[in-house]
């Protein structure tokens, strides 16, 4: 597996989460992968998940609709509206999950250096409580995946 960098996750404030990741590709390419539906479909979602609905109207005021399907067949839907687009450096959008209250604001910044692109996405939640619920849910999925991996290892060992 090609892995050019480690993902950094920080909490700049009580209502925010920031993700930083370096990709070994020029900025325009990374920006496209984050905004074009045919590309998003090929990577968005962790192992075992697929993007079964991916509609993107990539312009200021335009919206998007994603539905991710998990390994257990459960769907997780989200939608949003683009607020600001300065391709290929920066974009701001609002997003909300079907199953959780509140809307969060996502600011993505792409910086290219020596052919590599650093992407920083800062998510601002309406409250600390909602931020913590979202992370908690991510944690459940993460745990489920760990169990899958454990099951695989055990099957190999048997």
């Amino acid at each position, binding site marked *: 597996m090609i*892995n050019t960098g480690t993902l950094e996750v920080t909490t700049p404030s009580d209502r925010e*989460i920031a993700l930083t*990741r370096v990709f070994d590709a020029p900025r325009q390419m*990374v920006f496209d992968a984050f905004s074009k539906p045919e590309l998003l479909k090929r*990577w968005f979602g962790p192992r075992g998940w697929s993007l079964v609905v991916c509609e993107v109207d990539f312009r200021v005021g335009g919206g998007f609709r994603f539905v991710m399907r998990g390994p257990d067949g459960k769907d997780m839907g989200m939608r949003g509206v683009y607020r600001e687009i300065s391709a290929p450096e920066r974009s701001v959008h609002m997003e909300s999950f079907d199953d959780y209250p509140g809307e969060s604001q996502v600011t993505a910044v792409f910086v290219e250096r020596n052919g590599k692109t650093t992407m920083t996405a800062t998510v601002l939640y309406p409250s600390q409580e909602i931020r913590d619920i979202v*992370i908690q849910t991510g944690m459940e999925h*993460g*745990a489920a995946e760990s169990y899958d991996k454990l099951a695989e290892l055990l099957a190999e060992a048997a």
Partner: protein
Amino acid sequence: MTELAKPFDMSQPAISKHLKVLEHAGLISRGRDAQRRPCRIEAQPLGQACGWLENYRRFWEESFERLDTLLEEMKKKDKKGKKR
């Protein structure tokens, strides 16, 4: 506190401030023993605090690993396109 401050290039009041934050968050507890304030790490809450971010990180990292693979493909196609 003198012992705890030793490895750090920080003043004692600064160390004391950090310890207060950790104690307030329930990540350490402090006792009292004459002149000393022994600190104890509260392992369970500390593990939870590390765990929730770690799992969120893994959730996204798996997506980004797929994106790495896609970007490699895109770069190869881009090169081929330029040669033509």
